[in-house]
């Protein structure tokens, strides 16, 4: 007991003796360490970039940013119609499970900290380097604000480091108006472009033209919202309940002016990238008139790290920084551990050239004037339906009979042994009949059936053909009627997949880069802004012939894609606008932008859904009020004449139905953030 008392006393004495120990601990990295040297700054930048709200292989629209780390990630099945997918995460972009909010403010703090503290170390760097670092900080801030604004509209514009503890007045930043928010984004991007070097000082860093390219994208979003909010029932605007600030949408009086201003900014930024950026469309493999070269060129454009089209890419390195895209999205025969997540739709294919059409513009598969008339057109090979398709489309698809990873990809839905010519399998192909299945048809039942299909890949139905040979009732990659991890629409996605026979995908061993911004998009930004400005009657901001620039931009992209060039110069009309929009949907499909495009064009809700595909299409053909669906292109083998026929029908394996309402154009502010703050407003229309 004495001993204990003694040691306690000793301890107490020791405590009192350390009052002068205020030297900085050696095991903590201080801002001095980070901001005073270039290697320190690399660490600072790496930290910021690692938490940037990138939507790439690590992002799934339904889940949101960050914590899922790319589990099940894929593109095109977020209700944009590019593709469908069997699973629950295939749904319209009405919100993200993990709302982007808290992490945004952490990253904003990092950016603001740099802006406030780097000036103390100005002497440590050459001026150009110092400016570049500072520019990066503004760029990151603009990028985060932009990511928030397109989700929520007006946001808390935190442009300073908030020290803690402090009074709640200093800690709490209310949402600004949507207009102020976009203005701040514009000026932050400008600041970044002004400060940053024209070429990235190091691989992976942004630069002046990255800032301008993203700015043109952001300003296009702002201009569209200001303009097209007016077309939505209820005009999508309102004042915050707590602050009385117009946190969502634009004042009717200023909306048109604001829209013009933002489109002008978008045009100017895109033009500067076009004129001085030194980027160009990827044409390394392209050859005039050679369709397969054009196709290969489009495929390589995605995978070539040194593409002159890449403005900003996110790189991955095996084995340290990897993703799992191939492990989830390759065809079923390469399943590991999953497969076939991206199944392109017939509606998407209809955007492209090279197919026969019915008078209403839909894909022609029978000799009649609609799906229900005539008999099926027969093809010698399963791939022949896509024989004349636009090379760009083929670069996106693994179509039936395509080569992938050195193998022929078998995709077909069934074998028909009945008489020919074959009458349409279904009585009704309308939206109302979307639930009907092939396997429930009378000809697919009983011992005398003439239509054979396969429920799942482990249970292939074997058909004995009239000539005595045997054949599986479905392709090795499906579609299977009871197993949706297959070519559910008769097609599979190819974009971003690694087409290397020696590569075996596993979770976390893919290392292809993701292109965050490429030059083709800048061309499309310029073209869209130009046409919008012309519609609004605005003058060209730089004296250039805006519609000439737009026409050339579209034609450059079409030429590269193997599509027909515009017949005449674009005009300031909605028809020309739709040409540009449709081109955008085609060129940037299976990237992450399309869901934002539909959102900013305000064409996802039922009232405006005629414009969903960029071009005008009758929404009632694929919608029932807020619900909408997409179709597949199902190949069947006719055993009697040894030929193939195709049936275009609403996807009937996973029965994917999407839903979108006007309220979804602005995500709700996370409820807990609203409850705990005296100043953060919920969206006024929720």
């Amino acid at each position: 007991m004495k001993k204990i008392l003694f040691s306690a006393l000793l301890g107490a004495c020791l405590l009192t003796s350390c009052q002068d120990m205020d030297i900085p601990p050696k095991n903590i990295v201080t801002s001095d360490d980070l901001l005073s040297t270039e290697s320190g700054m690399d660490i600072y930048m790496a930290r910021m970039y690692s938490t940037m709200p990138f939507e790439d292989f690590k992002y799934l629209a339904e889940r949101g940013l960050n914590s899922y780390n790319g589990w099940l990630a894929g593109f095109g099945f977020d209700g944009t119609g590019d593709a469908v997918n069997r699973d629950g995460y295939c749904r319209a972009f009405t919100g993200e499970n993990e709302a982007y909010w808290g992490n945004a403010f952490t990253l904003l703090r990092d950016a603001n900290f740099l802006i406030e503290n780097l000036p103390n170390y100005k002497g440590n760097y050459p001026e150009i380097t110092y400016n570049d670092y500072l520019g990066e900080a503004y760029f990151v801030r603009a990028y985060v604000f932009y990511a928030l604004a397109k989700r929520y509209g007006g946001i808390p514009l935190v442009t300073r480091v908030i020290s803690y503890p402090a009074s709640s007045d200093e800690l709490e930043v209310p949402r600004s108006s949507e207009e102020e928010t976009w203005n701040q984004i514009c000026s932050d991007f400008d600041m970044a472009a002004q400060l940053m070097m024209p070429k990235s000082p190091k691989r992976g860093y942004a630069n002046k033209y990255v800032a301008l390219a993203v700015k043109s994208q952001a300003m296009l979003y702002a201009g569209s919202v200001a303009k097209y909010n007016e077309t939505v029932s209820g005009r999508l605007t309102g004042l915050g309940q707590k602050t009385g600030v117009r946190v969502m949408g634009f004042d009717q009086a200023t909306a048109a002016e604001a829209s013009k201003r933002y489109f002008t900014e978008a045009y100017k930024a895109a033009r500067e990238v076009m004129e001085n950026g030194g980027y160009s469309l990827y044409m390394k493999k392209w050859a005039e008139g050679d369709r397969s070269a054009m196709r290969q060129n489009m495929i390589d454009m995605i995978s070539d790290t040194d593409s002159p089209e890449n403005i900003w890419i996110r790189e991955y390195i095996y084995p340290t920084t990897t993703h799992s895209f191939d492990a989830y999205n390759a065809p079923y025969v390469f399943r590991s551990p999953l497969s076939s997540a991206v199944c392109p739709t017939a509606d998407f294919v209809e955007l492209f050239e090279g197919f026969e059409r019915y008078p209403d513009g839909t894909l022609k598969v029978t000799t009649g004037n609609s799906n229900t008339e005539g008999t099926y057109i027969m093809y010698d090979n399963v791939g022949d339906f896509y024989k004349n398709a636009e090379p760009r489309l083929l670069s996106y698809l693994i179509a039936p009979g395509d080569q992938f990873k050195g193998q022929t990809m078998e995709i077909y839905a069934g074998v028909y042994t009945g008489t020919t010519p074959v009458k349409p399998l279904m009585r009704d192909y309308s939206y109302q009949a979307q639930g009907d299945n092939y396997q429930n048809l009378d000809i697919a039942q009983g011992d005398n059936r003439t239509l054979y299909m396969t429920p799942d890949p482990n249970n292939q139905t074997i058909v004995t053909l009239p000539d005595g040979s045997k054949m599986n009732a479905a392709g090795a990659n499906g579609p299977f009627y009871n197993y949706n991890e297959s070519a559910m629409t008769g097609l599979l996605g190819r974009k971003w997949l690694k087409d290397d026979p020696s590569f075996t995908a596993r979770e976390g061993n893919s290392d292809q880069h993701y292109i965050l911004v490429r030059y083709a998009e800048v061309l499309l930004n310029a073209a869209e802004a130009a046409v919008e400005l012309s519609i609004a009657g605005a003058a060209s901001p730089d004296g250039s012939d805006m519609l000439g620039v737009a026409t050339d931009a579209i034609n450059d992209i079409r030429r590269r894609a193997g599509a027909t060039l515009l017949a005449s110069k674009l005009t300031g009309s909605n028809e020309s606008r739709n040409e540009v929009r449709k081109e955008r949907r085609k060129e940037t499909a299976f990237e992450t932008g399309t869901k934002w495009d539909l959102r900013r064009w305000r064409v996802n809700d039922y009232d405006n859904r005629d414009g969903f595909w960029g071009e005008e299409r009758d929404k009632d053909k694929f919608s029932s009020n807020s619900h909408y669906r997409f179709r597949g292109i199902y190949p069947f083998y006719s055993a009697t004449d040894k030929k193939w026929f195709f049936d275009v029908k609403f996807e009937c394996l996973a029965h994917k139905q999407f839903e979108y309402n006007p309220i979804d154009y602005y995500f709700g502010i996370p409820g807990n953030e609203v409850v705990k703050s005296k100043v953060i407003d919920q969206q006024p229309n929720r």
Partner: protein
Amino acid sequence: MKQFKIFGMTAALLMLSSCSMFEIDNYDAPEETIQGEVVDVATGNPVLTDQGSEGIRVRLTELSWGDNVEHNPDFFCMSDGTFRNTKIFKGHYNVRVDGPFIPLVRETTDGMLLADETINTDIKGTTKVRFEVQPFLNVKIVGDPTVSNGVVKAKVVVERGVSESEFRDKIEPMGNWSDSYLNVTDIQFFVSYSNSVGYRARDDRWSSSISYTGNSFNDLLGETITITSNGEIPSGRKVWVRAAARINFDTPVGSGTRRWNYSEPVEVMIP
């Protein structure tokens, strides 16, 4: 050492007992009931709706929490225009309903309050509230629907529940007035195997709609409109049908949700 142990254990015990761990909760369970109905002020008839986010939304906000309060999770009227929630905490609440009728809360675009017809009430035991509202439209199925070859044909009459001038008197001060607000945009004909038929419980195979552009419906107000179902309903079972119509005005303003006024559901045997 033994003393030490005893002291430690006593201390631990004291610490445990200090967090009132033996009480399950210190707050009364949510067992109060609110019961309400939404009726047409002109006729006293219930305002029929559909149970879902396109129907009549009921929003409770507990006022005793102070000024920075989030409303309770929304719920929705049953299709007969009544609602009942039996799991409410005791308290003083603001009760607000939004649906296909003149908004109870009307504000200008600058946020100035023009009218507030919501109800503030203590919810305790079973509290009843009654909202007398002005529905945009009254929708009726007249006569018995007929069936031939699996197609249901019904006669529908749509009338205004609130006159054009009165609608304008109340809505125009809210700002951004447009004459198009008054246009009837579509008639829906919902068909379902369920008697809770409506927008949510419709069968896409058979439900149909007629759209009207501009003010083209004005001449049809009060007239009998024939509407038929889509496709072919298999014989041998009963279906329920319901008609609905809406105007070009969203509630609450800015939500973009244009809500339908409904008819009573009608049972139809498919022979």
